[in-house]
């Protein structure tokens, strides 16, 4: 983000004052990353859609609860809490629904290479879905949300070493299962 672009927090404040365009900018910044975080966590496009709308709804209507810290951490905390709530109620599908995933054709690659890439990509998504919830959560908060160690530790409410340990286990497991793709 360049210096001239307003920060997430500044956009959010503008939105709270009634600025539609500030919200649209903010929405574009987090549109895909929030959706993917939910999709990888829920592993079902239907659940992800529902959760996605809930997350934004909370952001829009519960703006007063924003503590003035990082907007990114705030948004992903809402997403994480909704996933946990849904999982506790037992209504969250944790099996990857691969049929709903759309993969575009990649230019400059042979059909065989593209098929292999797609296969590896799908396998990775499936394996992420098979990781223990604590490891998957840390992996996605790092890879998708781009949160720091400190932010993840604060959000998950565990020590930094615990977060690092979960991440190491997640990477080790994924590397073992996806060795031929790497």
């Amino acid at each position, binding site marked *: 983000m360049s210096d001239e672009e307003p920060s997430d927090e500044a956009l959010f404040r503008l*939105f*709270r*004052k*009634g*600025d*539609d365009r500030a*919200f*649209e900018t903010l*929405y574009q910044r987090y*549109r*895909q990353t929030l*959706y*993917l975080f939910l*999709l990888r966590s829920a592993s079902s*496009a239907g659940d992800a*859609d529902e959760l*996605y*709308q809930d997350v*934004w*709804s909370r952001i*829009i*209507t519960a703006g007063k609860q924003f503590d003035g810290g990082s907007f990114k951490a705030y948004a992903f905390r809402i997403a994480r809490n909704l996933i946990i709530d849904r999982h506790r109620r037992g209504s969250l599908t944790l099996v990857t629904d691969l049929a709903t*995933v*759309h*993969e*575009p054709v990649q230019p400059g690659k042979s059909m065989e290479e593209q098929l292999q*890439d797609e296969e*590896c*990509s*799908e396998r*990775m*998504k499936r394996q*992420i879905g098979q990781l223990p919830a604590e490891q998957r959560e*840390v992996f996605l908060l*790092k*890879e998708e949300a781009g949160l*720091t*160690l*400190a932010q*993840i530790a604060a959000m998950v409410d565990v020590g*930094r070493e615990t*977060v*690092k340990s979960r*991440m*190491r286990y997640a*990477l080790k497991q*994924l*590397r073992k299962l*996806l060795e031929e*793709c*790497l």
Partner: protein
Amino acid sequence: MSESDKLPEDSELNRLYRSGRHEAPSDALDQAVLSEARRATAKYRNRWIVPLSSAALILLGIGLSLPLIDLDIYDEHQHMPAPAPQAESIYESDQALQKPALPTAPASGAVELRNQAVPAPQADLAAPPRMEQRAKAKRAPEREPLREVPEAVLQSIDREQSDLTPELWLAEIEALIASGQDQAARHSLNGFMSTYPDYPLPESLLIWQSGH
């Protein structure tokens, strides 16, 4: 950032993960979220309308009622039964508002005292409007004295003399006349006459009174 602040990384896994990031929310989902946001911003914008318009109404009401309240005060004053000689002119009655009337002095005495300080009657015509006079009186504490003898002195004389016997009081009045303090003597005599209306005045005082 030190090494201990970093999360473990695997660049190959990271690349593989990135290559599969193609999914995105549908247009319908986008529109649903953006519509909700627009509804919310409309609310945020409108939340000032009610308090602002209420405040504006209150200010307008105060602004309109203040002059009316001011006029009411003057109307009441005009409708009050006027102590006949004191309300000869608006200018005088306004001055009477500024200056409390002497409790023991009869009306005729007050007129006499004022006549010494109040300029010619033509001044009434040249006097500024009542509102203006009132505003001036509020912001300008200094004003032309009504009489030469300070009011406090006259009041203290009143208090002291009302405790005296009629004989002693009359003797004091005569002493004031003898020392040339005509105004104080006249004031004191007026007080005496209102306190002892049936007491016969000595001839010397009657002569002095008729001479003035």
